[in-house]
C-alpha cells in the first residue's frame, strides 16, 4: 500500500469542474513536482492534499488514514508568501512549530527551553542563526522562505506541501534554495509535493513530475470538464529515463 494515495478525486466549484478522476499513489520519501498551465487545478489539488478543501468526490489518504476534513499536523505547508508569522521573531516562529499544538499555544519552563534549543539547531541548519531575534519583515525573500520551510519541518509533518515556494525569488536565490531543499531532504527523507511553474525546477528537484491538463475540452462550455494528471514522468536520475532499467530487468543486460 502506498504512503499517500489519491483515489478517483473530483473537485468542482458550482457548475465548474476543476479536477476529475485524479488517481495518484506516492511512496514514502518521494518528491513529487506538480506542473501545468495556469488554472489547470494544480493548486486546487495541493489545497485538497492540505485538506483546506474537501474533494467533491473521492478519497485522499495518508498512510491509510481517512480523508481529512481540515488542515492538521500531518501536513506541513509553505506558500509563495505569508507563510511565517510577522509578529513573532525568527526564533519564536520556529518555536511556534512546536508550541501551537498546546492548548494555549505556549510552552513554559523546561519544555520551552528545550524547544528553544531545538529551534537554535534548526536555525543553524537553515543558516538563519545570525537573525534569530529579528522579525520576518527584516529578512530577504529567500531567508523568509527558508524560515517557512524550517518552521514547517519543526512540526514534523508526514508530508510537506510547497505551493510555488520559490516563485517570488530571484534566479540566484532560487538556485541556493534548491540546494538547501535537496540537503534538507537528504537528511530527513520527507515526502514532498511541490507545485511549480518552472518545468526545469520541477525536473531538477522531483523524483516524479505530474502534469495536470484537461484531457477533454468542450469549446461551448470550457468549464464542463476538469483537469487530471495527464503525464506522470519519472524524473529521477536527472530526468533521463531508463537509467536504472538494468536494475529492474537484469535480463536486458548484454550477455
Amino acid at each position, binding site marked *: 500500500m502506498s504512503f499517500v494515495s489519491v483515489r478517483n478525486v473530483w473537485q468542482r466549484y458550482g457548475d465548474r469542474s476543476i479536477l476529475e478522476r485524479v488517481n495518484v499513489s506516492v511512496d514514502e520519501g518521494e518528491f513529487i513536482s506538480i506542473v501545468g498551465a495556469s488554472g489547470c487545478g494544480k493548486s486546487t489539488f495541493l489545497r485538497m492534499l492540505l485538506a483546506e478543501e474537501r474533494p467533491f468526490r473521492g478519497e485522499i489518504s495518508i498512510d491509510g488514514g481517512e480523508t481529512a476534513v481540515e488542515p492538521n499536523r500531518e501536513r506541513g505547508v509553505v506558500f509563495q*508568501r505569508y507563510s511565517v508569522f510577522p509578529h513573532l521573531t525568527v526564533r519564536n516562529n520556529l518555536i511556534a512549530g512546536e508550541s501551537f499544538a498546546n*492548548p494555549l499555544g505556549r510552552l513554559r519552563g523546561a519544555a520551552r527551553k528545550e524547544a528553544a534549543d531545538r529551534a537554535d539547531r534548526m536555525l543553524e541548519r537553515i543558516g538563519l542563526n545570525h537573525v534569530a531575534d529579528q522579525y520576518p519583515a527584516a529578512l530577504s525573500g529567500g531567508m523568509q522562505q527558508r524560515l517557512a520551510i524550517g518552521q514547517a519541518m519543526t512540526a514534523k509533518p508526514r508530508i510537506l506541501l510547497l505551493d510555488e515556494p520559490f516563485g517570488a525569488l530571484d534566479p540566484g536565490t532560487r538556485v541556493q534554495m534548491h540546494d538547501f531543499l535537496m540537503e534538507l531532504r537528504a537528511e530527513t527523507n520527507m515526502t514532498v509535493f511541490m507545485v511549480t511553474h518552472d518545468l526545469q525546477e520541477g525536473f531538477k528537484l522531483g523524483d516524479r513530475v505530474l502534469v495536470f491538463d484537461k484531457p477533454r475540452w468542450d469549446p461551448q462550455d470550457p468549464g464542463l470538464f476538469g483537469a487530471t494528471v495527464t503525464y506522470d514522468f519519472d524524473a529521477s536520475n536527472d530526468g533521463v529515463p531508463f537509467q536504472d532499467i538494468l536494475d529492474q530487468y537484469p535480463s536486458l543486460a548484454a550477455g
Partner: protein
Amino acid sequence: MRLINHIPGRPGSVILAALPFVALLVAYSVASDLRLEANPQDKLLPAPGTILETAQRLFTEPDKRSKEILLWNDTFASLARLLGGVGISALLSLLLGLAIGLLPYARSALSSFIAVLSMVPPLALLPILFIMFGLGELSKVVLIIIGITPFMTRDLAQRVMEIPKEQIVKAQTLGASSAVIALRVALPQILPRLISNVRLSLGSAWLFLIAAEAVASNVGLGYRIFLVRRYLAMDVILTYVIWITLLAFVIDWLLKTLSRRAFPWMEAGL
C-alpha cells in the same frame, strides 16, 4: 519645479507647523482687542491675559463653598467616564471583532446586526439611556460604549479577515486550535489596529461624554462648560476647552508611543 516636489527644510517645516497656531492666536487677540475697545464690559471675547488669569484661578483656588478645586474634580470625573467607556468598548470590540473575523457562524449571526447598529445615531438614544440607566455615571459610560463600539468592532473584524489566509492555514498545520489561532495569530496582529482605533474614536468619545454631561450631571468638564454658559463666562469656557484639547492630545500621544514601543515588528520592515 512642480509644487508637489517642493519640500520644506527642517527650520521651515517647524515654522510652518507653528504658523496656524500663531495666526489663530493673533486673530483672536485682535478681535478681542477691538471688542474690548468698543466696550470694556464685553464678555464674548475676553483678552488672552484674562483667560490666563482665570485659568490660574481655576487650577489653583478651591471653591468657596465646597473647599475643593472644581476643575480637578471635573477632570477626574470626566476622565474616569471617558476611560471607562473607551476601555470597555475596546475590550468588547476586540472580542466581537475576533469572533466575527474568525468564526463563520459568528460572522453570519452578528456582522449585519453590527453594521445596522453602527448607523443608529447614539445621541438620539441618550434620553432612553437616561431613563434606563438613570442620571448617574452608568448612562454616560453606556452612551460612549454605544457610540464607538460598533465602528471599532467592524474595523477590527475587517482587519482579522484581512490576515492572509495562508497564515491561518499554516497555523492549523502546526496543530493550532481555534483558540490558539485567535490568541497567538490574530490577536497580536490586530492589537496595533485596536490602539489606532482607540485613537480615532477618542474624538467621538469626548463628543458623547460632553453631550451627556451637558444634559444631566453634577460634575464633569462638559457639565461645567454648560453651567457657566449661563453667565457668559467665556474665559472659563475657553480655559476648559483648551484643557480638554490638551488632555485629548496627551492621551493620543501616549497611545501612539505605546503602539510604537509595544509592536516593534510593525516597523521592522521600514
